[in-house]
């Protein structure tokens, strides 16, 4: 059965590029693209919501 992937929305206007989401993601889903975070490997996402929880800038929304 195909794994249902979550959607990770990154509001680029809000992101200040602090690296917190990239660093604290346990499965390294995110990466920095220039000054803002972006999704690199969505298949690895385990929906732990750490990125959304820790983003100080309200820039990440994860929906399963």
């Amino acid at each position, binding site marked *: 059965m195909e794994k249902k992937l979550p959607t990770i929305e990154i509001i680029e*206007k*809000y992101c*200040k*590029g*602090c*690296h*917190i989401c990239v*660093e*604290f993601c346990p499965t390294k889903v995110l990466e920095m693209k220039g000054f803002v975070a972006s999704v690199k490997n969505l298949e690895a996402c385990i929906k732990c*919501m750490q990125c*959304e*929880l*820790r*983003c*100080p*800038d*309200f*820039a990440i*929304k*994860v*929906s*399963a």
Partner: protein
Amino acid sequence: MAFDYDKYIRPGKLPHIWCPGCGHGIVMKGLIRAIDTCGLEKNNTAIVSGIGCASRLPGYLDFCTLHTAHGRAAAFATGVKMAKPEMNVILVGGDGDGTAIGGNHFIHACRRNIDMTYIIMNNNIYGMTGGQFSPCTPTGAKASTTPYGNPDPAFDIAKLAIGAGATFVARGTAYHATQIDKLITEAIQHKGFSVVEILDDCPTTYGRRNKFKSVIEMMNRLKDVAVPVKAAEKMTAEQLQGKILTGVLYKEERPNYTDEYAKVIARAK
């Protein structure tokens, strides 16, 4: 599912002014989740602050908010609570605002045990005014006004609050994000003056001067120094050296000011 923060934030106010990696945003999210858990109504909740980076927080929240004079959050909040005792009053501010300029208001609010919640974001420095040392700057740390190291010992906000008579005192960190909303929820539900100190990071004015290479290093320091109260019971004094206790540190039931004052009004009639 993603938590809907947007319904509690004033439209068009984001992005906020805090620097990249500043923990105030994490605390604000924790506060929003705690308010949501407690089911506080927007029109029946006042969020009061003084001046400083942390005190910008009420500006973003869609509640009854009050941005007051430096250090005077507790004074204005006392006024709000006395005029409308049924209102939920939450104070937010930084360590400099709360314990230096507003130190007097803070200890007397604790003493009176007014039914309010004070969230102090302790980032060890005056961030907004250019990195001057605050009463919470650790001994030896560098600030713009202590370039050769701070000779003063730092305040322990939790001990100060307990000593002054607060009836609920808790401490969390910006790293332990899920703990923040649990502590604030418990503080809001407590009847009496509750103090929640959140250890925070200031990468711009504190981290830069004190050899922290990145925001991540500052966050990991918070992770390393924090020891939950229960775990600390099993540790020796040697192991606890340099550690900071987190969790609910103190809780007691005592008559609160609002109820006592209502009795005074009844007696006077």
